[in-house]
């Protein structure tokens, strides 16, 4: 300006302008349409902050687009010198270290009620089969040659519809795709009510959707609810130790809220604690989306493949219930299998709405919450398996 200092206009590209619009669009979706507002609003503002050139909140290595400079001396000196920005620090100490996704999972565990899954243990099988989309999309992503094997597992895990495992795996295996993968994962979770019904109607008959299930599930005694997280940690940890950071945090959070003597800790973990971490996650993920990193064909492919992942995840859950019904005397409504794609509680709500459309007497929400919650554990197990295999 008047030769005194540099304005941002000179460095502004068409890509930056497009990203500013995308950032604004995300904030609009969060505020006006109430789509995952806790995440889309911080992600949107992060996108805007990082696409105004020369602002210095998130500095990328000039020679290698997408590479984020490390704070070499704890960060404060580099921030003062303009070598890195505040968001570089948040990325490295929050996301790069995996601290934020794991602690968010602790908070989610504290907020979760696993009683519907405990009262119908078959829910865990439906939660597992609903991971089908993860593996189908992994295959497509890798075999088409569009993605490396590390990237392909991260694209696939979007189908698990669970944020923290997706972020956790992507930070470890393909951090260069963290921005688009996280954005697509959270956006599509909000779009579950749009994505799932066509698949459900395609794969089930009206007669199946009409299957009546008694509204109440078994009441789970408190001792059983205390033993549950410990049992999950031991079983999942022994079979897939690499999933324990995720499963362990989820179950620890849950234990805090069910013991009856650590209520304050559980309330804290599921309250301001998880809120702070959530907006830090959103802001940091948004800052990973400067135009030079985000606008490429891989992002478009991720957007397309995620739809396939959700469709096959929904199908996997439905098919498992249909197979189970061949052997069960008291039939299960296949809609509750569709809720095996985590997306808590949206997928369970979809089962409830579609179930009531087919049979107004049906009240499937609590039944659907079982596979829904089991899906969160299943996605964490899948993330652990990918961590140790690839």
């Amino acid at each position: 300006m008047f030769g005194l200092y540099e304005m941002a206009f000179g460095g502004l590209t068409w890509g930056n302008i497009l990203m500013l619009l995308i950032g604004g669009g995300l904030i609009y979706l969060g505020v006006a349409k109430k789509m995952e507002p806790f995440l889309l609003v911080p992600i949107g503002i992060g996108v805007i902050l990082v696409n105004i050139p020369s602002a210095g909140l998130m500095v990328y290595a000039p020679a290698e687009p997408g590479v984020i400079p490390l704070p070499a001396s704890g960060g404060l000196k580099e921030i003062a010198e303009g070598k890195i920005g505040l968001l570089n620090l948040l990325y490295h100490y929050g996301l790069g270290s995996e601290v934020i996704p794991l602690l968010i999972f602790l908070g989610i565990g504290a907020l979760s009620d696993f009683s519907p899954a405990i009262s119908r243990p078959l829910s865990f099988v439906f939660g597992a089969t609903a991971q089908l989309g993860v593996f189908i999309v992994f295959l497509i992503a890798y075999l088409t040659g569009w993605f490396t094997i590390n990237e392909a597992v991260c694209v696939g895990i979007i189908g698990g519809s669970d944020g923290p495992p997706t972020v956790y795996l992507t930070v470890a295996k393909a951090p260069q795709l963290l921005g688009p993968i996280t954005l697509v994962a959270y956006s599509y979770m909000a779009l579950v009510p749009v994505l799932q019904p066509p698949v459900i109607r395609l794969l089930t008959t009206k007669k199946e959707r009409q299957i009546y299930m008694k509204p109440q599930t078994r009441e789970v005694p408190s001792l059983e609810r205390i033993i549950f997280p410990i049992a999950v940690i031991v079983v999942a940890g022994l079979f897939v130790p690499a999933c324990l950071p995720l499963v362990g945090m989820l179950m620890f959070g849950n234990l805090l809220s069910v013991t009856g003597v650590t209520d304050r800790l559980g309330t804290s973990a599921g309250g301001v604690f998880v809120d702070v971490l959530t907006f830090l996650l959103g802001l940091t993920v948004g800052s990973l989306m400067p135009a030079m990193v985000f606008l490429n064909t891989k992002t478009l492919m991720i957007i397309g493949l995620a739809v396939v992942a959700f469709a096959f995840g929904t199908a996997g859950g439905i098919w498992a219930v249909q197979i189970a019904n061949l052997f069960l005397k008291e039939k299960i409504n296949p809609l509750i299998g569709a809720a095996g794609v985590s997306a808590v509680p949206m997928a369970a709500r979809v089962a409830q709405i579609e179930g009531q459309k087919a049979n107004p007497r049906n009240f499937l929400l609590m039944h659907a919450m079982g596979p829904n919650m089991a899906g969160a554990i299943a996605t964490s197990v899948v993330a652990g398996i990918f961590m140790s295999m690839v």
Partner: protein
Amino acid sequence: MIDWGLVAKTAGGGFGSTLLVLVILSIVIWLIGFVMRRRVRKPKDES
């Protein structure tokens, strides 16, 4: 070049392992519930 062995291991083995772990988990949870229900029922029967 595609490493078919790794693909089969990751996709087939991965999905199979997930299913296996969750099936075991469902059995363990069912067993715990079964024991709990018996434990709760017993004192009632005795009275």
